[in-house]
């Protein structure tokens, strides 16, 4: 709408001008307008051609990357698994030094009853265990015992007061009242929990409208009522809604004398972990749906009650691994420069015919499968492998002194230098090709020695190529996974190997996503630098 109005006004303006003496096309349309239209059509056509691929890459690649970034902070599992407990913990002051109130334990009993029924409590246990080691067994053990909890105290008290509480109609009345659910937040959560539990336990045949909920829900109702203000309570008992008033008649006065289900004591008897404040602090800390704990873990820190702290020395892992990845990538990049420079120089100075031959020697490894090259190195570098055999045969080393060149940093550096070398040679070569030999001749004619001419004239001209090649090799190396995994042992692995480990073995996907996000930022920053130096359009292949 806006766009078309603007266009119209532009059109009418150009009309006014054209009405005078502006050039017209054959059809009598002002030339300016006709050109603008053609341009618009051309832009549209270009976009239409690009659109299918753009949509494809967005869906199949960019969304997944976004999903990973989201997963590194996403933490809805706690709130989804124990919704009542999370809500009840809001009122608990984690620094008070006291355990949460009975109300929290009642909510926990209620949430756990459903969680163990649909078998999601162990998953929650493992999640919290990442930040609070040891808690997963607390959840596992409690899950097994939860059915044995005594839970009838509040229920019997309600029924003793008014037998109607034992009828489904009472619950229908309650849920239809105007105070529901605003004043019965926990009871509402508990009722949902119970319905889900019932559906799972009894199948679809069970009709929740024909049954009364289990004791946990009555206990929750009791806690909701006893946390209400006196005026709200009496408003219930004297409600203009007659059935509600009948249901709550006498409840306000009797509440104080209701017996407690003592879930706190019962949980403490099942697993003493529930009496440890650390565990509760961890649960409370991890209850928000968006959380930075994975990122903190990825930089060897953790959030404790006094704020963010470094982990103890012996538990630090990832910062060291990031540093090792960067260090090894720098070593590999340096080796690539040292080995790549002479070859690129040779390629640039030989005749076309011989340089083509050598180029094939460079391109063949480039085109050979990564796994083929890695397996070749694995075979060559073994202690019983070709290189060690050769060295023993020549007499450089003794039979007992065979070198350990694999499953350590040496293995990673040798194999990756070999694999990434073509990525250094090719950009260097394309820069060196453009340096005219007359520069060197001019320098020498003015009396420079070979060395001086090289360092003062030739080398400075190749720095751009070194930069381009180095960033390329560094970017590729920093994210490598396959080769370090196969020849790196434990000392020569990269951060990628840790990411893979968390995805496929430890199943701590959040941490894998956080580590991946950090690596991604690092690579994008480097890539941005590459773009500034070389330009994205100058990426050449082969």
């Amino acid at each position: 709408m806006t766009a078309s109005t603007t266009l119209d006004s532009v059109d009418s303006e150009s009309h006014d001008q054209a009405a005078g003496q502006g050039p017209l096309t054959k059809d009598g349309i002002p030339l300016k307008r006709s050109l603008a239209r053609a341009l618009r059509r051309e832009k549209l056509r270009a976009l239409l051609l690009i659109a299918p691929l753009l949509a494809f890459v967005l869906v199949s690649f960019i969304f997944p990357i976004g999903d990973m970034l989201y997963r590194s902070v996403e933490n809805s599992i706690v709130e989804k698994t124990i919704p009542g407990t999370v809500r009840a913990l809001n009122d608990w002051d984690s620094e008070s030094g006291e355990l949460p109130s009975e109300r929290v334990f009642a909510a926990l009993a209620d949430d756990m009853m459903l969680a163990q029924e649909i078998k999601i409590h162990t998953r929650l246990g493992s999640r919290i265990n990442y930040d609070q080691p040891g808690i997963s067994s607390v959840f596992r053990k409690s899950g097994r015992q939860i059915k044995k909890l005594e839970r009838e105290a509040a229920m019997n008290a309600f029924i003793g007061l008014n037998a109607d509480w034992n009828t489904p109609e009472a619950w229908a009345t309650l849920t239809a009242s105007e105070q529901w659910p605003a004043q019965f937040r926990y009871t509402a959560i508990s009722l949902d929990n119970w319905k889900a539990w019932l559906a799972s336990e009894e199948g679809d045949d069970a009709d929740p409208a024909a049954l009364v909920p289990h004791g946990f829900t009555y206990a929750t109702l009791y806690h909701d009522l006893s946390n209400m203000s006196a005026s709200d309570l009496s408003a219930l008992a004297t409600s203009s809604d007659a059935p509600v008033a009948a249901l709550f008649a006498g409840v306000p006065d009797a509440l104080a004398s209701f017996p407690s289900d003592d879930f706190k004591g019962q949980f403490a008897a099942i697993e003493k972990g529930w009496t440890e404040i650390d565990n509760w602090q961890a649960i409370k800390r991890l209850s928000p749906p968006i959380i930075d704990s994975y990122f903190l873990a990825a930089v060897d820190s953790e959030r404790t009650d006094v704020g963010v702290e470094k982990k103890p020395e012996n538990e630090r892992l990832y910062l060291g691994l990031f540093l090792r990845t960067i260090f090894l990538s720098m070593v590999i990049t340096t080796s690539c420069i040292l080995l790549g420079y002479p070859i690129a120089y040779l390629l640039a100075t030989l005749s076309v015919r011989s340089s083509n031959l050598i180029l094939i020697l460079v391109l063949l490894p480039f085109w050979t499968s990564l796994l083929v090259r890695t397996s070749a190195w694995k075979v060559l570098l073994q202690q019983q492998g070709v290189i060690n055999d050769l060295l023993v045969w020549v007499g450089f080393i003794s039979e007992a002194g065979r070198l350990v060149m694999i499953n350590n940093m040496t293995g990673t550096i040798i194999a990756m230098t070999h694999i990434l070398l073509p990525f250094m040679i090719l950009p260097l070569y394309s820069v060196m090709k453009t340096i005219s030999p007359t520069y060197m001749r001019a320098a020498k004619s003015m009396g420079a020695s070979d060395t001086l001419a090289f360092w003062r004239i030739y080398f400075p001209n190749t720095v751009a190529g070194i930069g381009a090649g180095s960033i390329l090799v560094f970017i590729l190396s920093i994210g490598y996974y396959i080769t370090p995994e196969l020849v790196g042992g434990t000392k020569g692995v990269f951060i990628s190997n840790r990411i893979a480990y968390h995805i496929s073995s430890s199943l701590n996907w959040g941490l894998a996503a956080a580590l991946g996000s950090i690596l991604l930022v690092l690579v994008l920053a480097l890539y941005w630098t590459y773009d500034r130096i070389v330009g994205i359009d100058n990426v050449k292949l082969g």
Partner: protein
Amino acid sequence: MSALPPYASTGQRIWFYTFRYVICAFILFFLIAPIITIIPLSFSSQDFFTFTPEMLALDPAGYSLKHYEDFFTSSDWQKALKNSFLIAPAATLIATSLGTLAAIGLSQSHVPYRRTIMAILISPMIVPLIISAAGMFFFYSRIGLQGEYLGIILAHAALGTPFVIITVTATLVGFDRSLTRAAASMGADPVTTFFKVQMPLIIPGVVSGALFAFITSFDEVVVVLFMGSARQKTLPWQMFTGLREQISPTILAVATIMVAISIVLLTVLELLRRRSERLRGLTPS
């Protein structure tokens, strides 16, 4: 310095020959030797990864084709081979068709947000594979494509498109626009112009882009490791697990076959490059 000048001093001569025949020869040896070494080893009659005395003595008894026989008779390897030749062409087809269209679009003279679009389209090539694989694994398992052929094909197609874009764009850079105008002036509609004039000229770029996309998928292992189940194992997947668990000499036979495939691909690419330059009126170098 392509050749030594006649007036070179002894020092210069020594350096020249050292550089060329010692330093450079050593580096080239480093580049090529690992690949060359595994070829004879793959014909060994023993299960060792080193040259046996019989092999060094060129005794025919030291050589055999048993590792190749293993490869062609093992159901694991054959399944992997079949999967590789199912996934790679499918991914190549998607990547090449979408990529070529987009490259033509990108080479028009007025493309809004060209830089941003280019950055998005090239990103699968820049992002480290482990991150792409992690993201795709998370996302595809959400939508139920994890452990499915379709999921791997789509993932590989996404990884291959940047190569198609780059190669086709490179061919289009030298494309003479007056050719399409000439065709139009003689009454050809845009579709005819595309197929009769533009397509024959850019076809070498398209084919080499397709080759790159093919080799990307054919050689890719990280995404397959995460996203595939045992049903979708490909050649690299099988090689990777073989190398990690217990390394069997069959891998050397597979490696040799794959080297042969790369040599064929490399030759095809080089021929295409020359043809493309000839078509565009450049002297092949």
